[in-house]
């Protein structure tokens, strides 16, 4: 084994170890949420995942962004086949080991190159949409600072990686043309052959060309491994979580609100004295802290783990917010912000647990980040859940937080208190008694 192979092994092993550690941290954080069993209707779940995640069916609701995204997505998945070859070459000192595939190898390398150009162009268009066209959904208040930087880092990294890939191929092609040792003439280079001739690469000295080829080879693979480890800190993590998140989608009708069985027990015993009240709830212990059974969500621990997975799956595209009737009419509510706030709070809790080995109440909660004004602006119209390309459900978080406000803190909008009283006393949201329910028949 050469020094290069050993160095490669070390880089690869540490990148994988670091990624595994980050994945474990994310799984631990998601499991801070309330347990919820989701394993029904499996056929429908696989079908939904195939259609929505793999097939990107909801992305094309907006054709320009959708088609560009499919280009990057296909490029990402297919070009990564190349990584397999790079790893084998890196570990065993071979060069373009895939060439054993013969004509298939030519086809593969050729298509990688064409896709790489597609990805490059799509990333340039995406940067332009953000920086030049300034599409409103990319410039809402919650996008200030890190979220916008994160988006740019991702796009620029992808451009650099694709640039390195094509430059590496161009240098390799020139070396093959010059008959250099260790660079047998394999692969087809529809794009980089042109690049090599435009730049007159065959005029360069062999050692220079070999340096260019080696540097871009290392830059490409180290870049990919670094990017892999950037994912868990970035909105770009959606490339991993989109698949499980869609598998666990809510399959019930969008406007169906989940039942609270615990309350059913209490209400049944209230309505019928012969029914025994339910046993007191057993508090759940999470990361060393007892979490009391609460009605609704005060903090991330009170949300279902699925809502927490939703939060990590959000890539902040803002399609939800741009369809939200509240946001469209200038209200504070932005469904994307609900998801980002949930994720940021979860990360904050996770970091505190990592630092102290257990969770201690820090006096903050989801409600520190999400205001009542946001919660009460939602019309539960589900435009956001319809718009989300990976079936995230912000309405569920809003509903759970409203439940906490109303049932644990008795805090609501004054008019809603009036509505509650009417429903309770008259069986209608208005102050009309049941005796007037049939008035409409009088002149019917």
């Amino acid at each position: 084994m050469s020094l290069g192979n050993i160095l490669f092994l070390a880089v690869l092993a540490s990148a994988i170890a670091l990624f595994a550690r980050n994945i474990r941290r994310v799984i631990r954080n998601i499991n801070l949420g309330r347990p919820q069993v989701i394993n029904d209707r499996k056929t429908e779940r696989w079908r939904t995942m195939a259609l929505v995640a793999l097939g990107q069916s909801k992305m094309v609701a907006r054709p320009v962004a959708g088609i560009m995204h499919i280009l990057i997505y296909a490029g990402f998945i297919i070009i990564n086949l190349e990584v397999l070859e790079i790893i084998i070459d890196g570990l065993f000192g071979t060069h373009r080991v895939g060439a054993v595939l013969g004509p298939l190898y030519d086809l593969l390398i050729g298509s990688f190159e064409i896709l790489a150009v597609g990805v490059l162009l799509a990333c340039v268009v995406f940067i332009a949409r953000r920086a030049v066209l300034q599409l409103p959904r990319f410039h809402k208040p919650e996008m200030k600072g890190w979220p916008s930087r994160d988006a740019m880092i991702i796009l620029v990294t992808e451009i650099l990686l694709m640039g390195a890939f094509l430059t590496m191929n161009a240098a390799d092609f020139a070396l093959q043309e010059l008959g250099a040792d260790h660079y047998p003439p394999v692969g087809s280079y529809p794009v980089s052959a042109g690049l090599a001739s435009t730049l007159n690469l065959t005029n360069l000295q062999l050692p220079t060309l070999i340096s260019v080829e080696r540097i871009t080879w290392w830059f490409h693979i180290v870049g990919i491994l670094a990017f892999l480890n950037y994912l868990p800190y970035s909105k770009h993590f959606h490339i991993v979580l989109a698949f499980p998140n869609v598998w666990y989608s809510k399959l019930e009708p969008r406007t169906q609100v989940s039942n609270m069985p615990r309350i059913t027990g209490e209400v049944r015993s209230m309505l019928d004295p012969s029914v025994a009240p339910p046993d007191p709830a057993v508090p759940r212990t999470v990361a060393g802290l007892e979490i009391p059974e609460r009605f609704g969500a005060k903090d991330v621990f009170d949300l279902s783990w699925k809502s927490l997975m939703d939060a990590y799956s959000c890539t902040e595209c803002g399609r939800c917010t741009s369809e939200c009737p509240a946001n469209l009419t200038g209200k504070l509510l932005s469904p994307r912000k609900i998801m980002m706030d949930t994720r940021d709070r979860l990360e904050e809790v996770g970091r505190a647990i990592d630092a102290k080995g257990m969770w201690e109440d820090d006096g903050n909660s989801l409600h520190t980040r999400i205001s009542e004004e946001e919660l009460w602006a939602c019309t539960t119209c589900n435009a956001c859940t319809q718009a989300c390309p990976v079936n995230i459900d912000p309405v569920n978080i809003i509903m759970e937080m409203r439940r906490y406000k109303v049932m644990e803190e008795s805090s609501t909008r004054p008019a809603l208190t009036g509505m509650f009283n009417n429903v309770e006393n008259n069986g209608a949201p208005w102050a009309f008694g049941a005796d007037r329910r049939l008035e409409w028949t009088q002149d019917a």
Partner: protein
Amino acid sequence: MAEFAATGEVPDVLFWVGCAGSFDDRARKITKAFVRILNAAKVKFAVLGQEESCTGDPARRAGNEFLFQMQALNNITVLNGYGVKRIVTACPHCFNTLKNEYPALGGSYEVLHHTQFINALLKEGRIKVQGGNFQGKRITFHDPCYLGRGNGEYEAPREVLLKLDAALMELKRSKQNSLCCGAGGAQMFKEPEPGTRDVNLERSEEVLEAKPDVIAAGCPFCNTMLTDGVKHFNKEGEVKVKDVAELIAEAADL
């Protein structure tokens, strides 16, 4: 319903009138139009009358799960007591709650929105509509969130409206991309949160851009919101907001 029970007769369907349909002056007209259709089609239907109570939809959406479940469990006791199997309602919010949320509490029924019910009556030939007043008129349908996006029913109201021989126009935002009227999620019963404008004006403006003669609604709350919106833009003289049931009753001269 009590009268049916007393004679041992079983109605074909229970008409769940809903609070808007019972108490709101505008929505009462929808109730009456739908009843005229039911009578014309000789449907044997019952209402619960004083035994009907709010489904609990606004309480649940406003976060008061206790109140919702009290309403739901009481209603289920009444419905199951009468052995109700089939329910029709002109309110998508009642429809969603009865259909999707009562089963978890022990109340499972076949629940239909009135546009689905009317569509079936038309298909079976139990009522006949020949365009009538609306022939050639520009009509546009506003999808209620709780019927369309919520429960995937986009076609029944459109199929019914086609019977009017009118020019049926789709709005820019329609079907799954329809824009809310602003009333859902208990907003109907509170002031809007601060913003630059009200949701119903945003929607009404879009609907009016289509220059309809009639805006067809399928929800008493959408009806209120759009009627207010049309008034805001001083168009109430030219543009009428009507429920699908009212249009059919009027066209069939009922």
